[in-house]
């Protein structure tokens, strides 16, 4: 439950922003990270940015999520083939 997801801030008005992770976009708040700017990458947890992070951290996590998604698709296909 404590997992935070890196996402790029693509819109921002005050402490309300829109974040983008791998094409998925959602509304977040930047109340806890007043230093962030449009275009920054932040860790988002439960709708709040909790830290500004570097591109490298985000890239690693996005790659990991893509791998997990691929793996789960494969597993589901394998299950489908069994049935």
């Amino acid at each position, binding site marked *: *439950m404590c997992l*935070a997801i890196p996402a790029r801030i693509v819109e921002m008005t005050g402490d309300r922003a829109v974040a983008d992770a791998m094409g998925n976009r*959602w509304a977040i*708040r930047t109340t806890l990270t007043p230093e962030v700017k449009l275009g920054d990458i932040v860790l988002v947890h*439960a*709708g709040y940015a*909790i830290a500004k*992070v570097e591109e490298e951290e985000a890239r*690693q996590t996005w790659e990991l999520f893509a791998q997990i998604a691929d793996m789960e698709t494969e597993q589901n296909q394998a299950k489908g083939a069994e049935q």
Partner: protein
Amino acid sequence: MRLDVIQSACNELEQACAVIGRMVQVMEVCGTHTVALFRHGIRSMLPANLKLLSGPGCPVCVTDQGYIDTVIDLARRTDCLIATYGDMIRVPGRNTSLERLTLPNVRVVLSSDDAVALAQKHPEKTVVFVAVGFETTTPATAVAIRQAQELGLKNFTVLCGHKRVLPAMHALLSGRNDKIDAFLCPGHVSVILGSRAYEPVVKNFNRPCVVAGFEAEQILLGLAKICRQIADKRPTVDSVYSLAVRPEGNPVAIRIIDQIFEPCDGPWRGLGCIPDGALRIRQQYADFDAQKRFGIEQIPAEEPGGCQCGKVLCGLMDPSQCGLFGKKCTPDHPVGPCMVSTEGACAAWYKYQR
């Protein structure tokens, strides 16, 4: 994933464990680590004398049944609207869960912000926000309370179930399981608290504390650092997650937690009452405290018969050693809390190691 980094971390781990020459028990405090360890197949890559223990680091798992029962009681009231994170709806109380009740006034929210919006949209109801989670999640609840106050909302309340990770680590080493040699510290809790927060654990108990993120290389690097520290008999606080975790954490988040909440003794499911292990809403924000608004007294509950979640959460037992595991207790029909949450130790073992 950088294979060279993984290879060198594995080599370092082998060497350090060879020097130690006895069984080493490292507790991964965080449920997200538990799942990541299985997903990456890390458990199969470890030296034979390194044992990983899954800790009490899943907020859903350590939420006391008495709290769940209170939520269910409030959900039965027609004047209340329950706003909860999705993780909580499957957790069984003494008799039932929110999911099984299928009540019309339970809403799953993605953020505390959504709960405030619900209160604005439904002035005829009192919104009860089911606030669980560790320090990663607590600041969002604090912001919501502050915002509700600024908006002058009279129908927004919080049932505070927030817990503090560090007192639980202290409690484990102070008696519940003093065989833990070191902690792999939670990545995202540490984003808020900062790596420095673990210094008292090192100072008081002489145990290494290393913060890691959730990629395979980070976890292996973290374990390698831990075992090197044990081999050298030089425990310290370290972090291999410097891209997100600063020594001082997130000061804005720490400040707002402190503004709205104060530490109190509180029940952790499976672990019992932990001194300063929970948070309560400060008196000046009592208007937003669901417990005070509805005059609730929470009664900590007994564990279901045969359930060994308490021992699992302390690292005293592997999930598969519980008599209910995989038989009476499965992810579809969970008995204990560790089987309910996908980040619970038992659910992770069931999915990956059966």
